[in-house]
């Protein structure tokens, strides 16, 4: 395991909310990528976190771009660096709204045409930057400002959409496991072509839990099996350690749900539906890992 570099590319201090898991992720992503990197950031929390003109906490080039355009802008950068014979890493760092909703066309296009870049979606399961409106990534039953009675439909399965593009590397990660994330970013950047990492990023104000529980909430998502950590390298799936244990002996789903104010109105029927979905997802991944497809 490579040592985590001491350098910090997020200077003290960003304007992120206290306990922001996205800032934590960004620390490890930039440590893994190093200074020869450009981050492409569409409208999302990170547009604000970086700070206001003329100062920024980001000690790495950041190219801000309109909501729907991140993956396409990254394509332009990546191809331009190739034209200039430079090896600069191009990393999109986008929220779930900019990925699963408005940005999915650009994402799909960039993956289909084999753009050499890493797309990272930090998923806090709603439009966080604008005050928690529902997104396609909001889970069933979660209250947001536009689903005040709880979201009636389920979370869009982004990973299966990306998987359909057959990228050389894709992985899930969670902010509660920063070293795992660091390792995955390192690996992704060692591979040519379009790479994808989907990070579950708990959000204290959005999910309605107190800030100190950010790590605990992420770990609960993994331990209950709600979020499965895995990597798919050239089509070969590996379920990562913490999730392996969780699959063998999952923590009760209620432990994850009850700690979050957004799930206040979840009915027993919804909980059962969540459990079934979670199980179906785990079964599918386990079968794939075992080579039973």
């Amino acid at each position, binding site marked *: 395991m490579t040592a985590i570099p001491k350098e910090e590319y997020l200077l003290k*201090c960003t*304007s992120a909310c206290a306990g922001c898991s996205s800032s934590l992720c960004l620390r490890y992503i930039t440590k893994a990528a190093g200074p020869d990197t450009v981050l492409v950031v569409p409208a999302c929390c990170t547009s604000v976190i970086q700070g206001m003109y003329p100062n920024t906490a980001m000690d790495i080039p950041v190219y801000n771009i309109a909501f729907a355009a991140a993956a396409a802008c990254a394509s332009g950068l990546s191809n331009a660096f190739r034209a200039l014979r430079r090896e600069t890493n191009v990393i999109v760092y986008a929220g779930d709204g900019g990925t699963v909703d408005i940005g999915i066309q650009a994402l799909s296009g960039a993956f289909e045409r084999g753009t050499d870049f890493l797309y990272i979606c930090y998923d806090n399961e709603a439009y966080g930057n604008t005050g928690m409106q529902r997104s396609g990534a909001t889970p069933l039953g979660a209250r947001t400002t536009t689903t005040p009675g709880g979201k009636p439909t389920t979370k869009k399965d982004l990973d299966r959409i990306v998987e359909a593009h057959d990228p050389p590397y894709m992985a899930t990660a969670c902010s509660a496991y920063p070293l795992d994330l660091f390792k995955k970013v390192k690996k992704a950047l060692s591979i040519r072509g379009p790479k994808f990492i989907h990070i579950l990023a708990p959000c204290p104000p959005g999910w309605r839990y107190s800030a100190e529980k950010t790590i*605990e909430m992420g770990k609960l998502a993994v331990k209950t099996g709600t979020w499965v950590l895995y990597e798919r390298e050239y089509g070969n799936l590996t379920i990562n350690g913490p999730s392996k244990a969780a699959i063998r002996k999952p923590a009760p789903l209620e432990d994850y749900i009850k700690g979050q104010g957004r799930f206040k109105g979840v009915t027993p029927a919804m909980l059962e539906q969540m459990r079934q979905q979670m199980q179906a997802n785990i079964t599918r991944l386990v079968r794939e890992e075992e080579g039973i497809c």
Partner: protein
Amino acid sequence: MRERLALSRPTEASSGKTGSWRTFRPVVDREKCNACGLCAQFCPDSVIDEDLVIDIEFCKGCGICAAECPKEAITMVREDR
């Protein structure tokens, strides 16, 4: 050269001294601390340095360090303001 577009330069304290955001301040009990470094690892704002000293000018007081400390060596203490 005239500045044609909004470009921000890396600056410490770009969002001000964020320590003022705090309601609770982390206080480390050096007796209990075994220097495992998990507090620094999990700090979203990288305000805990290599020697595990918390930069109180910038710490937003989220309490993650206290919550994740396996030795319960960090206590969140109400700021006296």
